[in-house]
């Protein structure tokens, strides 16, 4: 999910081409086959956008690769939201393909996924509204020529789709400058006595991490302007194991760690532990357990396994074993030393200890626990 890009060969020029370039062929085929009504300035009809994201086969025989593997319902809601010119907020824990979905939505709807504002603690108002070319400004005074438009402003002028990444990391006052944009669909330029009005087709996709604490919570005024879609973690354990194994393999190769094909058992175990703790119930659905405060996302499972690989390669016998991942799992689970430790110990005693074939893992975890 997070790394679906890995499956497609990149254009030779760029390390990672934009979605609209990488999948230009598919987009063209879809546009050709698409006979349904399109909202103003949309490259495709909402139905075709869904097909682009979820994959399918066109009447002509062109196969559209799935970009997002997940519930169809969510994609439909997301596309419908954009079609009703409401802004879309994609929520989810890290590693749930929020950015990926947002990029592909923008590419399919507007044919341009580059109108991007990366949200950080240092994102300023200029990045959301407009800035000035100060040399021009000093030389000629305020004018349209001296104005440096932000991606949002350009999207408004062109009727395109703007993207805001990590919306909740942007300081609250900067966030709020989006309110006018989203409700009035206009951006006043008081220095020039003008305004930029959004052209039909303008919309905005924001992504935010809903488990991250210590970020700037959206004001309810801003929140109200968004329809929210929560992207879930992988539904089945198999899918998650597959994602983790594939990603670990890629990372391992770039780090030049020896490949461990027989590590699948350990990966399955880590994924099982993560899923069980995350869901608060064992895989067989029979025992309830507490969930720790950490996220335990797929991305974290990947880093635990990668760390274990490194341990096994450099200090072990090259085979990924329970002891190699135990410390990593402990570190990922116990984020809050007080409450999470209890959660972890309960889990160890109530679930891991009783499980067939998990003896080594139990022992390794006991040893890793202080």
């Amino acid at each position, binding site marked *: 999910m997070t790394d679906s890009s890995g499956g497609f060969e990149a254009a030779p020029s760029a390390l990672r081409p934009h979605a609209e370039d990488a999948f230009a062929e598919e987009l063209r085929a879809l546009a050709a086959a698409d006979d349904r009504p399109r909202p103003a300035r949309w490259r495709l009809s*909402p*139905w075709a956008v*869904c097909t682009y994201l979820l994959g399918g086969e066109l009447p002509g025989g062109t196969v559209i690769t799935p970009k997002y593997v997940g519930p169809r*319902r969510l994609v*439909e*809601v997301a*596309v*419908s*939201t954009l*079609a*009703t010119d*409401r802004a879309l*907020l994609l*929520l989810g824990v890290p590693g749930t393909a929020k950015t990926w979905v947002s990029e592909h939505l923008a590419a399919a709807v507007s044919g341009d996924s580059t109108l991007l504002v990366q949200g950080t603690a240092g994102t300023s108002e200029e990045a959301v509204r407009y800035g000035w070319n100060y040399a021009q400004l000093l030389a000629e005074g305020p004018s349209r020529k001296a104005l440096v438009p932000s991606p949002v402003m350009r999207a408004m002028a062109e009727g395109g789709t703007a993207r805001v990444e990590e919306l909740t990391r942007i300081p609250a006052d900067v966030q709020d400058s989006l309110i006018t944009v989203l409700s009035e669909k206009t951006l006043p330029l008081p220095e020039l006595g003008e305004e930029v009005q959004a052209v039909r087709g303008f919309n905005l996709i924001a992504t935010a991490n809903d488990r991250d604490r210590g970020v700037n919570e959206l004001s*309810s005024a801003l*929140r*109200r302007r968004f*329809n*929210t*879609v*929560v992207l879930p973690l992988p539904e089945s354990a198999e899918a998650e194991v597959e994602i983790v194994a594939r990603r670990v393999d890629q990372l391992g190769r770039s780090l030049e760690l020896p490949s461990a094909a027989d590590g699948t058992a350990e990966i399955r175990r880590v994924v099982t532990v993560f899923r069980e703790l995350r869901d*608060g119930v064992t895989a067989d659905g029979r*025992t*309830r*357990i*507490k969930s720790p405060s950490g996220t335990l996302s797929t991305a974290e499972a990947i880093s635990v396994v990668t760390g274990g690989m490194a341990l096994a390669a450099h200090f072990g016998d090259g085979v990924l074993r329970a002891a190699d991942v135990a410390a990593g799992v402990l570190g990922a689970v116990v984020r809050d030393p*007080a*409450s999470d*430790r*209890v959660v972890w*110990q*309960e889990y160890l*005693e*109530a679930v891991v200890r009783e499980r067939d074939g998990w003896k080594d893992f139990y022992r390794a975890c006991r040893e890793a626990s202080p």
Partner: protein
Amino acid sequence: MTTGHAGTAVPGAERGGAPLLLGVRHHGPGSARAVRAALEARRPRVLLVEGPPEADGIIALAGEETMRPPVALLAHAADEPGRAVFWPLAGFSPEWVAVRWALEHGLPVRFMDLPAAHALALGDEDGAGGSDENSNGDGGGAALGDEGGGANGDEDGDGAEGGGPRSTDGSVRVDPLAVLAETAGYDDAEEWWEDVVEHRAARAGSDPYAPFAVLGEAMAALREQHGTGGGRREHRRDLIREAHMRLRLREAVREFGAGGVAAVCGAWHVPALAAQARATDDRRLLRGLPKLKTEITWVPWTHRRLARRSGYGAGITSPGWYGHLFASPDRVVERWMTKVARLLRDEDHGVSSAHVIEAVRLADSLAAMRGRPVAGLAETIDAVRAVMCEGSDVPLALVRDKLIVGDVLGEVPEGAPAVPLQRDVERQQRSLRLKPEASERELDLDLRKETDAARSRLLHRLRLLGIDWAVPARSRTGSTGTFRESWRLRWEPELAVRTAEAGVWGTTVESAATAKAVSQAAEATVLAEVTALAEHCLLAELPGALGVVMRALADRAALDADVGRLAEALPALVRSVRYGNVRGTGSAALTDVAQGLAERVCVGLPPACSGLDADGAERMRGHIDAVHRSMALLAQAGAERPPATAEASPPESQDAADAAHGVDAPAAGANDARGDGAGSDIRTRWRSALRRLATRDRIPGLIRGRCVRLLLDEGRLTHKEAARLMGLALSPGTAPPEAAAWIEGFLGGGGMLLVHDERLLALVDGWLSSVPEDAFKDVLPLLRRTFAEFEPGVRRTVGELVRRGGLSAATATGGAFDGPGGVGGQAAQLRPVRPGFGHGLDAARAAAVLPTLRLLMPELVTEAGPEPGTAGGQPPPAPPPHPADGAHRPERTDQKGHADREPGATDRESETDDEEAPV
């Protein structure tokens, strides 16, 4: 039915020539609306409805003001209320709409289905032939559910839900709707039905008969292709039912003329009713059917029970939504979103009108994208989630619960015949010879007697149902044994009403109590509630509910982070385990849950104990004591735990319970090794938890002291180790109040230990003497509380020991202390001394006191007079216990004599102290 042309089923084709056959989907609001329109158009003179003919007599009640749907027709075997069939009717059910319409227009209403007398008897026969799904242990509820499904839910093809029973030849009933939906390219039959019937029927204004014609055709085609759509059993049953319906229809046609008859039935049956069949063939099919004596009545129903997931076979997932569809004249989605917004606002979610507008827009646009004619339930749910709930499913669950399913509870007029539960209560009252009397009376039960045990069960079950005829009372005989129970009985008229209300839960006391316990377990929020419920289920012997309650208990326990609450729940649970064993109820599940709970307590206790204030520590000490006792019981229960044979399947649990008494002992023997292993395992864990508590610094002194004591009492801590820990706790670095708390924890509930272990007493004594004066006032209340709990005899002995000095002589640990103990230690180096006794008597000093003493108590002193002389060189023998020696006084004064003499101390006491002090 192959001869049945769809055309004959369509009234529009031969108006007046054929009875009006209205094929519907049960609980379909669109069908309901269409039925009303068709009836208005045709104006028939008699109405036939699919349902048990026995109900013809009580149909008039449906027209009464006080009858409010959802209600259900309930037929049950007269002598066995547990065997029952329900025909639920919601306000939007086509049958209900038709019945109301007919009653309003003064039409006779007749039910035309197979009589319940046969249906029940047949169901029974089938049950005996196939698997015994009707008698499996889920209590009455599940069995009733199956019946309801078989009798009601399958006709129009929602076979998936009525399809609990599989036919003997293994084929599963075809779901005609699913077939139609699949043909139309839908994944979900419900969705397809909504699109083609429910949403469209409302607009198809022109021809009121058109929807029925189309549906009839579709069903005829389906029936042709799939036969009757089921295995042999359903097939036969359908044939019989349809034969009966045809006969009733023919009767009505004879009476009112073909044009004057309208019939409402499941769409599936329409082709069969329209078919030309010979009356003699139909009669032959019906000949010789088994029969039961049955009774029928109306009972209130709930929306929740109409919902499929509540376990009742025939049902719909979204009665609330259907009710809304039926009730809304127009702007269905807009009205629905407004309802949702109001609900969310009531629950403090900020939902504005702007949200409603956006949600409606999104729902419509979703419907357009999905190619549906109007936004349906799925679209509205998605829209509500994205717009109003910020993508979260939590508030959505509320919407689902309150609106999509809904809280509606039906009402039945008072004139309705008694509900079977009432009859069951009366029957049991008779057979157990417990007359309902208005005057209060007490009842003592000996649970070893069969009748008394049955009585106890009945009373407990009734209590669970909220029929408080009997309340537990304190036994007059004062016996509190496990085998005794005392009750206070008083029957009040309102209890009859309560019984009627409880009729919602089931038809027999047992099934109703089971159903209620299950639902309570699901609703309970606090762990202790579920624990209490579990205990109650055991007392009331509801094996069917126990499993669910146990699951709820395990789940709550797993999520409850408050160790205090876990610790609170454990004792009751362990009691239940013990009790279950006593009664022979299979309580293996209970033991497992208790073990799990105990494990969680072991893990969670140490962190939960750190940083507690005085009150918290006090509470926690109580928990630790209770848990400690429970752990011992639990370990025992684990050892006694009977093997799987005791986990008898519920229907025979009564026998199994009796049998288990007999086999208990050998079974336990066989199982000893395993059980013991599990039991001792948990005890080991508990001890290690205690040990951790005892040695950790951040734990309050009260708890540390208590843990040391518990370990010491169990023999898991040597006296030497205990003394070391006590020394640590009482060392000068510890604040006196903390040390006093430690002592309170350690000595709480019995000071005998001090009498037997000189070292400990010396430590306490030494510490006490070293407490600085200003701090002493702070620790005094604590100490007083501690020592006041001691038995008078113990207090006295301790006092005597202290008075005698020479403490810690043998330990030498007290050497560091000032005061008498320390001095005694010095003396010990001179010569060995019997513990508890001073080193000889200072005759000169004693003599100095004698004159005063003689004045006070002449006779005593003359006796004591010679003593100094005789005892001079050697330790005195142990003195006989003195009757006058302060048994009535709190011994604390003795203790404190060293540092802070209380005015209450008697002269004699003071003098001895005086004597001792300079030694």
